[in-house]
């Protein structure tokens, strides 16, 4: 039915599922770095904990207070970044942000295609510039943690 499609192209099943039952939605007891993210315009908050593993990202956990999109984005992010080094992670974030803003990643390095595909269900937010921040907020917190900064806001 056309009407339900209107919902489903933005809120794909994977988003609903990860939004409702995040796999990684818990604080890590043992971690190396952590940071909070805060979207003052809408009140979304997230905290991300990271355990480093020889310079790459090991376990990641988060606590999020926010909408389905921000929670799902945090959960999908965790799966996408595990095993990457910080530089890689930042490149992936840039590509993801581009996708969230425009609907697709226009100048993506080939090696990012696979992880981006996993994040693609979130690309529908590009129609809602203010919701783009819901999707990118956990990433801002993650990058802040990796950079040793305590707090981030989605700009």
């Amino acid at each position, binding site marked *: 039915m056309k*009407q339900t499609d209107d919902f489903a192209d*933005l809120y794909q099943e994977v988003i*609903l599922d990860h939004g409702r039952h995040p796999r990684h939605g818990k604080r890590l007891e043992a971690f190396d770095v952590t940071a909070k993210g805060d979207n003052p315009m*809408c*009140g979304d*908050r997230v905290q991300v904990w990271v355990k480093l593993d020889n310079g790459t990202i090991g376990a990641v956990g988060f606590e999020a207070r*926010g*909408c*389905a999109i921000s929670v799902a984005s945090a959960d999908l992010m965790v799966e996408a970044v595990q095993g990457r080094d910080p530089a890689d992670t930042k490149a992936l974030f840039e590509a993801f942000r581009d996708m969230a803003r425009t609907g697709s990643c226009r100048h993506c390095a080939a090696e990012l295609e696979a992880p981006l595909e996993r994040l693609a269900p979130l690309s529908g937010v590009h129609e*809602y510039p203010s919701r783009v921040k819901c999707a990118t907020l956990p990433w801002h917190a993650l990058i802040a943690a990796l950079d040793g900064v305590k707090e981030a806001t989605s700009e």
Partner: protein
Amino acid sequence: MSITTSFDVNRIRQDFPILSQTIRGRPMVFLDSAASAQKPRAVIDAMVGAMETQYANVHRGLHWMSERTTEAYEACRDAVATLMNARDRSEIVFTNNITGSINLMAHSYGRGILKPGQAVVISGMEHHSNIVPWQLLRDSHAIELRVVPITNYGELDMEAFEDLLRDGKVGLVSITHMSNVLGTVTPAERIVRVAHKYGAKVMFDGAQAIVHRKVDVQALDCDFYAWTGHKLYGPTGIGVLWGRKELLEQMPPFMGGGDMISSVTYEKSTWAQVPHKFEAGTPAILEGIGLKAAIDYVQGIGYDALAAHEAALTEHALARLSTIKGLTIIGQAQDRGGVISFAMDGAHAHDVATLLDRQGIAVRAGHHCAEPLMQRLNLDSTARASFGVYTTHEEVDALATGLERVRSFFK
């Protein structure tokens, strides 16, 4: 007394060109008027008319265009004075929005008249615009900030209010006349009586109230009353502060510049009479002309008709929404206006708003610039539907149907 009105919402809707827009192929259902209202043709025409046929800077021009533009702009001051039943047109100060009006008060009354050690009272359901200026005052001028708690119904706790005043330290009470989150209309006359009994002056944040009710500052007997043009169907860029003349006269100016002076030398400047003392720089000329048209438009409909329409809509909406499972309406004040916040079990307010938007229905979601109230309610955010003079029963029904679809999607 029964109010008989010939209020025809379909005729009204024709006055608002934007309402014929479609969103994603569906008719637009605009339920976000409390954030900012749409503009009637009369406002658009007035502003275009000025720009196309009669425009120049005001107040100091000696030429035809300037004289005529000054008259058109100053006619807004008369319209506002009549709207609010001010004693004198010079009691009407124009600002850029109500946030500007309240900051003017926090500066000129707060730093100019209140003494360190005195207190300002606000309430537990204020908009950030009526919180942050007082915090800045508190921190720079050693003023105590007191907060009237609200009850579980979302009304002011009037006993607690009186208790806050008892020590006589309160110089100013600054409270909303209608909550932009809960819809609650506060008991303005009682607030004034109690405050005056303890020697405190009273200002109301009327940003929402003046859209829904006739505001008569003499009947209210308050000391200051502020509101913002864009919510009353006027343009952005203009706000109002009404104050008793004798108080405005005692207050030092806020911003310095052109138009607010009597004389300037490097050593010393002197100030113009009120209201000009508070109006520095080129005023919002086109916006004043637009606001005048908006006021005329509202007056043409009449507050009785307007309030009756909105009361009926609100009643209908409360009834309709309360049948939706898992939906909680936030705030149950006895006296309320056409602003309704709600929360849906298992769905975040942002998701609700986005999924309503996909059906062409515009509601707001978030903390509504009222974070402390959200904390009091133990919520991060709510979704909020708000009504204007052009809102129909059918639109309320569309909201209810839309919410039911959202609920079944999220279940």
